[in-house]
């Protein structure tokens, strides 16, 4: 049974439906239909003291929330449990878990000492096969870092069952918004991917826009009006220290994005009403102009191998997507559907480009292959924009803004299959998310 589900999820990950997976006696055909989420149980992680038991409960909750949040898993509620897990080392009563149709069982133990140290151990069981899936694992950290350890456990479970790279132990830098539309305050903020642990990187005195993580997750590029004009800054996330990156008088710079090496930075400069693309070496500050057309060129994004750049240009009369070599040069248009295309972002896997599309008064987040083929729209609303990829290239987060005088922005995520659209919980309005790589 587990093998059945495992094949199903792996096939899903490759998105190209239909896929026929045959494994043992089972035969499954994947279609665009609704998939049945995998039932799992995550009893509270056990502990021999009260601090540990409290953390054990919270860790199990976060693990369960991570897994159910993917839309690929369904949690079996504790009141249905027949067996109680009271010891990490006792044998699992598989029949009891089978009886309530649990396919994956996650058990764990927490050791919390008086010095703030936390040790988390866990095991993942394939209930129907009656055996462990992968090896038990032990994580060590601090008690105030319990959420990250929970995400790491969930990452292991997700990876072992789907065969995919994980993404739960990651962060999102975004713009926290408050106030009415015409006087909106914007602050740079950072949080866990699930909306927890928000902290602010700037105050609200200046407009800030579109932060972007470096490939190592330690720095953030963003645009701020703190000089009075839009300029690009780079911030060290740990130290919360920033410096201006691009500040020539008489021009505006925005839409920065790191290259895969963490040194090359792509961005737009507006000068004399014309917006073109530039590339800067962030260490030396040396910059090169990549485009010279009188049209608008903006929203550049490197391919993960650093060899190509996808960007947005209105050289054809409306904003469309183009791909050119990383050093500049001839660009190929890749978007040909009806409507206007913007904010292209190359997936970390290199196979897809996510984008914003505006058509017939609606906005969409979509994906297409890097040659522009197989365009698929994943969302539709009054205003969806600015996709960012999960570290494993499975999920896209973006900004959704509601209309009217009371309109506000919030973050949403959606699978690249178009399934599992859900709002990311934030306490304030939120826009312009950028997803970090998986943390170390």
């Amino acid at each position, binding site marked *: 049974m587990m093998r059945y589900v495992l094949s199903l999820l792996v096939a899903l990950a490759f998105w190209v439906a239909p896929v026929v997976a045959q494994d043992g006696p089972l035969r499954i055909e994947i279609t665009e239909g609704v998939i049945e989420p995998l039932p799992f149980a995550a009893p509270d992680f056990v502990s021999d003291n009260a601090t540990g038991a409290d953390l054990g409960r919270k860790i199990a909750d976060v693990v369960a929330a991570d897994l159910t949040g993917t839309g690929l898993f369904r949690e079996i509620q504790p009141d249905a449990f027949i067996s109680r897990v009271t010891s990490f080392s006792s044998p699992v009563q598989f029949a009891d878990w089978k009886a309530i149709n649990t396919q994956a069982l996650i058990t764990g133990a927490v050791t919390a000492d008086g010095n703030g140290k936390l040790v988390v151990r866990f095991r993942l069981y394939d209930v129907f096969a009656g055996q462990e899936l992968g090896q038990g694992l032990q994580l060590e950290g601090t008690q105030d870092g319990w959420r990250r350890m929970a995400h790491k456990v969930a990452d292991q479970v997700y990876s072992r069952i789907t065969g995919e790279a994980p993404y739960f132990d990651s962060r999102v830098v975004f713009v926290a918004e408050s106030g009415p539309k015409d006087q909106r305050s914007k602050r740079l903020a950072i949080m866990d991917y699930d909306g927890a642990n928000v902290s602010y990187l700037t105050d609200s005195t200046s407009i800030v826009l579109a932060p972007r993580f470096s490939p190592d997750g330690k720095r953030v590029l963003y645009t701020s009006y703190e000089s009075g004009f839009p300029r690009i800054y780079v911030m060290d996330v740990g130290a919360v220290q920033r410096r201006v990156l691009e500040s020539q008088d008489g021009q505006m710079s925005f839409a920065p994005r790191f290259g895969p090496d963490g040194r090359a930075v792509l961005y737009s400069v*507006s000068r004399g009403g*014309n917006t073109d693309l530039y590339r800067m070496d962030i260490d030396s500050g040396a910059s090169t102009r990549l485009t010279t057309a009188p049209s608008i060129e903006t929203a550049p994004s490197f391919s993960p191998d650093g060899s190509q750049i996808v960007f947005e240009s209105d050289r054809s009369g409306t904003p469309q997507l183009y791909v050119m070599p990383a050093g500049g040069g001839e660009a190929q248009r890749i978007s040909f559907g009806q409507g206007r295309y913007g904010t292209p972002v190359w997936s970390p896997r290199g196979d897809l480009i996510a984008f914003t599309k505006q058509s017939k008064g609606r906005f969409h987040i979509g994906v297409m292959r890097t040659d522009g083929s197989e365009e698929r729209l994943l969302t539709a609303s009054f205003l969806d924009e600015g996709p960012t990829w999960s570290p494993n290239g499975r999920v896209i987060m973006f900004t959704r803004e509601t209309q009217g005088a009371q309109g506000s922005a919030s973050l949403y995520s959606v699978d690249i299959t178009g399934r599992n659209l859900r709002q990311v919980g934030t306490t304030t309005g939120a826009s312009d998310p950028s997803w970090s790589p998986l943390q170390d």
Partner: protein
Amino acid sequence: MTYLSKTLMLCAGLALAACSSPDRFGDSNTVDLNSAGGTMAGTAQDPASPLYFQQTVGDRVLFQVDQSTLTSTAQATLDGQAQWLLTNTDYNAVIEGHADEQGTREYNLALGARRANSVHEYLVSKGVAGNRLKVISYGKERPIELCSNEACYAKNRRAVTVISAIPSS
């Protein structure tokens, strides 16, 4: 006092950008047209005052969807702006380009820059020294009208010429 209350009412009624965020440059050289008494701004009756520029000359021009070309109405307004700036050489100006909310953030920043630059070029063509003018784009970050239909969008697609006193250093 009558002038003052009139001014404030105008500000509120028109929801002028300069009224809603007078300190957005964090720069004391920017004339705060909404400050009590409007001492720097003078009065709307004084042709040499920034308030006169804003209200009588007209501080803004509007654009068609996706466009940065100046309509004949816009050109007439800018003729007045150029004349005022040529007469009142104690002031500089920042031209703010704006877009409506239909469009991505990045594209709208670039579009706002185009619009501000159209105004800049026109004023320079009428003899205003380029070094007295700065351009900035706010993209879709600072709408003045809040509804999500064309009635509001039309007013948000704008370039506003904001008068600032020349620093007395």
